[in-house]
């Protein structure tokens, strides 16, 4: 668990420490199981090909969960994720390295709240998921 972010460091333009994730087949199978998310594109390659994909695909909500972790890991135990908004833009195949990134875009020091731009970026530079998070710090 990361240490708490220092409020003085929460300034416009500050980067959130990136996190790298490479979801493998086991990640997708377990996530499907836990959610009872039964769509076959996440675990059945033959079926996924029928829908026109070359791979099985990472769940959109799994990327949302990763984005929440980007923010909570940055905040540490004293902070709280207040809101998260995101859009999934392109599909993500299994076994691809994803970098979760974010940047502070607005700060209300009095309220102790920051708005951050957040994203999931594939190795080719494409952002598969983009959004915004509101975080309470300090």
């Amino acid at each position, binding site marked *: *668990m990361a240490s708490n972010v220092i409020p003085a460091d929460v300034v416009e333009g500050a980067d959130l420490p990136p996190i790298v*994730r490479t979801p493998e087949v086991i*990640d997708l199978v*377990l*996530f499907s*199981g*836990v*959610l*009872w*998310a*039964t*769509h*076959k*594109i996440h675990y*059945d390659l033959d*079926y996924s090909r029928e*829908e026109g994909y070359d791979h099985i695909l990472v769940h*959109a*909500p*799994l990327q*949302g*969960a*990763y984005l*929440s*972790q980007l923010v*909570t*890991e940055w905040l540490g*135990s004293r902070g*709280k*994720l*207040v*809101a*998260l*908004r*995101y*859009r*999934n833009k392109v599909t993500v195949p299994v076994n691809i390295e994803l970098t979760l990134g974010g940047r502070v875009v607005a700060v209300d020091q009095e309220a102790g709240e920051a708005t951050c731009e957040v994203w999931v970026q594939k190795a080719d530079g494409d952002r598969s998921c983009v*959004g915004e998070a509101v975080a309470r710090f300090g």
Partner: protein
Amino acid sequence: MEPLISDEARSWVGSEWEPREYTVTREDLQKYAFSTREANPIHYDPEAARRAGYRDVVAAPCYYQVMRIGLYNLLPLDAYREDGMAPGYDEFPPIEFDRVLGAETEVEFHDDIVAGDVVTMRRRVADMWEKEGRSGRLAFVKFEYTFTNQDDALVRVLRFTRVLIQERSK
């Protein structure tokens, strides 16, 4: 041209499904935490959670996903369609479309969800609109889910917008 969203479809705005209840167990929270590679032990270790001031293991922020999807999908396997989806998972107003995608997810995180809680999920159609897209005509349907616990405290609010795509050739 006729609007994609008819008056009949539009009348779905404001309509609600039956509320569903979900009992949150410690093991369910642990499974969700591990499957998402959650690093913070308060989401899987009861001792770490208690040291941090929680009654028991506390849910990771996006744990509501388990209820949003599982509560409608939890059916015998023979009930699933060819694509693996459960009938009733995606219930849409009467709009003619070729495919459906997720558009936007907006979540508010309110009170904590802790092992032992009984959460009630309510789902309603919050809004609907249409526009022309590159690939065809698009109908947006915004669903709002509210999650409250056994003390009627609000724990999460989700606004999930789906886009129904009617391909250009139609």
